[in-house]
């Protein structure tokens, strides 16, 4: 069965590229967006299973972006990446339905079980 792809959103192109490579290396499909506008366009075109979103984006914060993406796809799962978790990030993120908030840099070995849970085993 074809797994639904993952959407990576981070304004650091290197961060996107490296994460995407890791996901590809482990057999997942991943698309990248460097800003919220592109992420929303992609989310409109493709059914993503999971969005991994950086909190600080040039045009919107990650939580707000996820809220908008949820309006497009109510079953979308979300992981928020942040450099600094404080209650003013965590509370709105939880309310928006984000499942995990991870502090950068993220160990992908830790991330894998979460991805498997929401996207399924890699193809």
């Amino acid at each position, binding site marked *: 069965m074809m797994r639904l792809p993952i959407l990576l959103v*981070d*304004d*650091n*192109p*290197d*961060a996107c*590229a*490296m*994460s995407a*490579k*890791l996901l590809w*290396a482990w057999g997942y499909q991943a698309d990248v967006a*460097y*800003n919220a506008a592109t992420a929303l366009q992609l989310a409109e075109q493709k059914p993503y299973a999971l969005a991994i979103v950086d*909190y*600080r*984006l*040039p*045009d*919107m*914060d990650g939580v707000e972006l996820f809220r908008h993406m949820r309006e497009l796809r109510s079953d979308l799962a979300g992981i928020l*990446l*942040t*450099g*600094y978790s*404080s209650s003013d990030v965590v509370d709105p993120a939880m309310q928006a339905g984000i499942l995990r908030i991870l*502090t*950068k*840099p*993220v*160990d*992908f*070995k830790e991330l894998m079980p979460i991805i498997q849970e929401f996207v399924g085993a890699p193809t």
Partner: protein
Amino acid sequence: MNRSQRFTGYVVAVVGCAVVLLARLGLNDLLAEQARLLPFVLPVMAAAWWGGLGSGLFATLLSVLLGLIFIIPPHHSIWVDAFSDGLNAAMFVVAGATISVLSESLHAARLRATETEKQFHTLADSIPQLVWMARPNGERFWFNKRWYEYTGATLEQSQGWSWQSLHDSAEFPRVSESWKRALAKGEPWEDIHPLRRSDGQMRWHLCRAVPVKNARGETVCWFGTNTDIQDRIEFEQSLKDADARKDQFLATLAHELRNPLSPISNALQLWPDVEGDKQELDQLRTVMERQVQQLIRLIDDLMDVSRISRGKITLRRQPVELRALIAGAIEAVRPMVDACDHRLSVTAAEEPIMIHGDAARLTQVFSNILNNAAKYTSPHGAIWVSTEREGDQAVIRVRDNGRGIPPELLHEIFEAFRQVETALDRSHGGLGIGLTLAKQLVELHGGTIEAHSEGPDKGSEFVVRLPVLRAAATTGGAQSPPPAKSPRAMPRHRILVVDDLRESAETLAMVLRSMGQDVTALSDGESAIHWILAHHPDAVLLDIGMPKLDGYEVARRLRQHPELQSMFLVALTGYGQQSDRKRAFEVGFNHHLTKPTNIDALEDMLGRLPSGGQLTESAVA
């Protein structure tokens, strides 16, 4: 009690006793034996009141004497017929002395009270607080000078309850309610409320009042003060703001420092999967290098701000050409400009403009400004850089068509840790110290920096003005560094400059041409090799960090040609990449230059060129 008061007392004693004597003699038929000495109590009291103890006792003795001589029989003698008259006279002396002592102390007490009252008024007028007194029912009846100065009101406009007109109408009902509650309970009152100043400004005051009670515990009056705490409130607020900015900055710092760690960490996790694939490994290494550089830049910025604010920075000043600085800065921000797909255009002054400055620091200034322009301009935007000379000043303008700066923030953007503070802008990255650094460094160079913006979405413009190094200074002015050799004195060589950043190559070529050299500029390694094989230049300046064929590879390939073994090869590397230097010599470079290059370094390089190049020979011929 002074002398004139004492004298008055004696006069009162004499006159009083005389008047009473005459009156008593006049009434002798009527009074007969009654009240022979009693009326003399009046002059004794009067004399003691006016003149104190001395004149009181004097009046007593005078009264007794006059009584004995004129009123008490036998007349015209100080002797008495009856024992009772003698006793009366003695009792009068005791009573007179007592009255005198009491009057004296009463008088002194009254003087002390007057003195205390005067001291109180002086004190009340000298303190910075507004002081007032109120009756037990809350009506105010006295105010100190400061009250009148502050409010500009008169006693009529302040007394009773009139002072309410000086209050904020919205606040007054609450203030009045709490004041009345304190009056009813007779307990000290404290409240914070605004009070109108004479210029109309409402300023916050801390108001305290205490009841003054008598021995029976009844409130006699209220004593109140108002302390202006507006400045303190504003100061506290500014501290809170600064604290919030610091917290925000720490959050940003944490984020910005962690941000480059993500790709580094991911690249390391990918490493085992791509081992053996050179291209993939190179890409991982490039990513890691780039992100490590970003981390270093962040930490350097942070340290620089700290160093500058403690005055611990030393500029390494030497004559530098403005275009070289701009080219260096453009090179530094090129990845960001390209990533955002901005169009960057440069309009440079035709004449080279020399500045006496620290090349690395000035490059940092312009790259910070350019970085800012790229950051706050939406993708596919435009950035214009222009340099020109206006009199003794070099003027550098960096303009963009980005988000602009709100007018109220224009004067604040050079403050440390200040980013345009909206939820959106926090996501723009950076520590918010780039412009602070730029300003501090420009000022250290004796220049100025200004920001202009028509407002949101109207773009912004940063104008840097730096003093131009005058021609006299370059040839040995008092303040100038070691006198520069005249460029014309250099033998003419054929030189090739290769840099993938065309502006950078062209700028360096221009500087070398201004030093009398024959220079060609190219922007890729492949065409450089072809050109070199065809033209055999005396020297080649090769940028190390070029895509496709990097400088090391070009050098290696050139050295494979036997006829190019002795050609002078110069490696160009970015600021601070010292490790590249060693590698450059290993692959066959003869010399190394750090970008942005300065005139001295170029002259030094030209001096190392083997003399007898083709052009020199042809020039001799």
